């Protein structure tokens, strides 16, 4: 380039001008501040991936998938344990809202996040000592009523914060819905026992066979503890209000599963079993019925087709594989038989979804069908049983009246889990209860420390649009399938149906993650920058730095960022980055001086360093 005619002030005319030192890794090119060529500044701004956003407890899913991909399993396990006390349980039972939200689902197949979580959970189970330890004791005592997912989660987080936690459980064994609502062929009891053992190792005391209102009164809870979390769940089954529901052979879904889970079941099923309901519990009941000796199991639902059933599609598929029949658009209106169920009276029905009336419309004028069965299992939802609760804390739905922080009025009583979430539009599932338990634990801690409660912050930027990422970097790649036991053999045993990933499978699956909107240190920006404008001391998220004095704003890094975490922000939005050059190419004061200094030092350096 010719500099003829360019105005160069006298102060810049120094001996060494014109010799350009080579760019370095730390500083990039250090002579011309070409940063003022830029109108758009690239900025690293991590967004919330949709999986983290959809997860009931906001697990850092992208984070642990990335760590698994790099083989840092223990780090990944520690990351998951921040939000989830029992990944080995949710890795088996979770209805994975994260996978439904996964952006990869719009591209080929969603990441099997649950399977990777299970891999990490099983890794944690094998450790002699858990990575999480109880916090420094703060001398305060908290009682938790119920040891289900919400109670377990609240106890875990409070123990980490240093509270002395006591869990009061009315059943003979702890675990709540994890033990009493989930069949053993989904969640083997020894897995849950190990997770509860971890909780006890953190100093949490679990008192079984203690029922609130019977063994311990409300005012005793108030007197003996600094605070209390009510995570009592929904334990009473809904009835379908059919005639003759009290006949022998009529069983309700949750008690059926609970008694089997607790080992106290006395039920003997006949060869023909009908299950009323189309949800996840109904599916578990139908599959459990096969394992309890039933030969023909029919599921009777009001929905007109299986796609409308309020359940997880994978579980429905596995159930149909095992040979359960579906009977759609029918509602049970009476249980027929002489003292014992012999047949069901079914009327045509449809799900209307009405809010103020019954959501199920039954056509009682049409002729009824007679359906012969030996047992019927009714699994149409549960409701709370809170007779012991003072009236002032009950709401019109018959559950606990808690504010948005889970607090009961101005008291130190809190409520968490299904008992609060029912009727709020929130889906009732283990992970949502865990998340609620976690948030209530943090709110309780704030209240006891006298701090102001703040509403849960809403994530501002979640990437749902694939166009915000660079999809050319992601070849289509099928999901790594988990192995299942064959349907014919599994339906007769209590063996776990779905098998876990091997290490290679987990790494392969984790490597499919897009890392939506979040830097995963792929180094692409570092490599594609045409100038050495991107510096990093090590290859890790948060370590990349743009040298704004030299970045020309060519947008190459932004366009080529696979995850979409790099954004172009208008340069004028920043007050910084003002570098005045005298003319278009004349160098600003100081740069020549720095160059001269470097050149002077060159002579003193050994030849191999130059």
């Amino acid at each position, binding site marked *: 380039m010719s500099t003829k005619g360019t105005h160069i002030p006298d102060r810049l005319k120094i001996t060494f001008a014109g010799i350009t030192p080579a760019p370095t890794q730390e500083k990039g090119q250090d002579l011309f501040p070409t940063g003022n060529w830029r109108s758009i500044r690239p900025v690293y701004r991590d967004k919330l991936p949709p999986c983290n956003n959809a997860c009931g407890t906001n697990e850092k899913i992208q984070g642990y998938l990335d760590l698994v991909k790099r083989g840092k399993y223990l780090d990944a396990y520690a990351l998951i344990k921040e939000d989830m006390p029992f990944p080995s349980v949710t890795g088996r039972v979770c209805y994975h809202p994260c996978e439904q939200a996964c952006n990869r689902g719009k591209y080929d197949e969603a990441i099997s996040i649950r399977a990777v979580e299970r891999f990490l959970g099983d890794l944690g189970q094998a450790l002699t000592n858990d990575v999480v330890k109880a916090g420094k004791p703060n001398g305060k005592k908290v009682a938790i009523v119920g040891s289900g997912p919400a109670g377990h989660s609240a106890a875990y987080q409070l123990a980490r914060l240093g509270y002395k936690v006591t869990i009061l459980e009315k059943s003979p064994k702890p675990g709540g819905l994890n033990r009493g609502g989930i069949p053993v062929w989904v969640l083997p009891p020894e897995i849950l026992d190990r997770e509860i053992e971890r909780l006890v190792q953190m100093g949490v005391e679990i008192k079984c066979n203690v029922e609130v209102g019977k063994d311990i009164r409300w005012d005793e809870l108030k007197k003996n503890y600094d605070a209390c979390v009510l995570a009592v769940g929904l334990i009473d089954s809904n009835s379908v209000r059919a005639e003759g529901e009290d006949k022998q052979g009529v069983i309700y879904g949750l008690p059926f599963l609970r008694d089997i889970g607790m080992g106290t079941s006395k039920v003997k099923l006949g060869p023909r079993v009908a299950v009323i309901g189309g949800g996840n519990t109904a599916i578990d009941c139908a599959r459990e019925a096969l394992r309890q000796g039933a030969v023909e199991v029919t599921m009777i639902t009001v929905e007109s087709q299986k796609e409308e059933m309020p359940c997880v599609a994978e579980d429905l598929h596995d159930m149909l594989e095992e040979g359960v029949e579906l009977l759609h658009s029918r509602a049970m209106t009476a249980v027929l038989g002489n003292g014992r169920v012999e047949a069901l009276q079914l009327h045509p029905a449809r799900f209307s979804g009405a809010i103020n009336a019954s959501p199920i419309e039954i056509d009682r004028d049409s002729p009824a069908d007679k359906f012969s069965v030996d047992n019927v299992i009714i699994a149409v939802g549960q409701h709370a049983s809170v007779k012991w609760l003072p009236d002032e804390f009950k709401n019109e739905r018959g559950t606990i009246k808690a504010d948005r922080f889970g607090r009961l009025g101005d008291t130190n009583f809190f409520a968490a889990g299904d008992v609060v979430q029912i009727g709020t539009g929130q889906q009732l599932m283990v992970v949502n209860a865990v998340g609620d338990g976690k948030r209530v634990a943090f709110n309780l801690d704030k209240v006891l420390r006298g701090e102001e409660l703040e509403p849960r912050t809403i994530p501002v930027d979640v990437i749902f649009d694939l166009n915000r990422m660079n999809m050319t970097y992601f070849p289509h790649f099928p999901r790594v399938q988990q192995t299942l036991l064959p349907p014919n053999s599994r339906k007769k045993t209590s063996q776990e149906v779905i098998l876990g990933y091997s290490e290679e499978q987990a790494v392969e699956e984790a490597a499919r993650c897009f890392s939506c909107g979040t830097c995963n240190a792929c180094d692409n920006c570092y490599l594609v920058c045409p100038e050495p404008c991107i510096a990093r001391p090590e290859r890790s998220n948060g370590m990349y730095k743009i040298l704004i004095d030299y970045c020309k704003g060519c947008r190459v890094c932004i366009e080529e960022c696979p995850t979409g975490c790099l954004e172009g922000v208008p340069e*004028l939005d920043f007050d910084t980055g003002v570098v005045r*050059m005298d003319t*278009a190419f004349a160098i600003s004061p100081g740069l020549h001086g720095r160059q001269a200094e470097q050149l002077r030092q060159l002579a003193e350096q050994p030849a191999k360093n130059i």
Partner: protein
Amino acid sequence: MSYTELTVWTRGIIMDKEGRDIVNSVAAAARKEGKQSQAMENYVDNPDRTNAPTRKYCRVSDGVIENALTYENENPNIVVLVEGTMVKGWDYMRGMPPGGTLIINTHYTPDYILRFVPGPERLAQLVCVDAAKLADHKWLYYRLGELGLDRLSTEGAAERSKLVAPDIAAPLIAAVVKTTGIVKRETIEPMIANKKAFEMAMNELHIMPLNAAVQVGA
């Protein structure tokens, strides 16, 4: 005798024609009005590099231009920044005598932009015009491949587009004419291709008078 220097700062290749259109049309209009004028580009600025800052000059005088053979405008009375971000990068105010005018293509207001202007006490007015919006331009930087088409003319060959100011130059010319009166509107308007943007800009300038607004040394 009146003598005015106009310097346009623009960016290489992608906005090169815009800058060239401004100085050429103003100089041509001045000649039509019977004045002496000249317009030239600064090739030393390396205008054939995308985004590189580059300058265009125009001089208008009632009499003979004494420094007609000088390359740069030493004391520009009017400075136009075709791309707003340039406000942070260069000492475009160098040599400006008191009472000058600075015109910037930006959607920000003069209140915000003033913080980036070096030596604003020399300005009589700071003018912000959202030329990209007025010309309904799909903002240049997002579609470099499509919009950096005028490479040939940047290299000094024939102008690819014969139109004068078909794009964001039109509102900027309107701003120059309206706020400085360097040439008459009637003379320059027939040359402009994008008449709609020119017309709109006449009514949508953000003009900040500065003699009273900025204290010297404040």
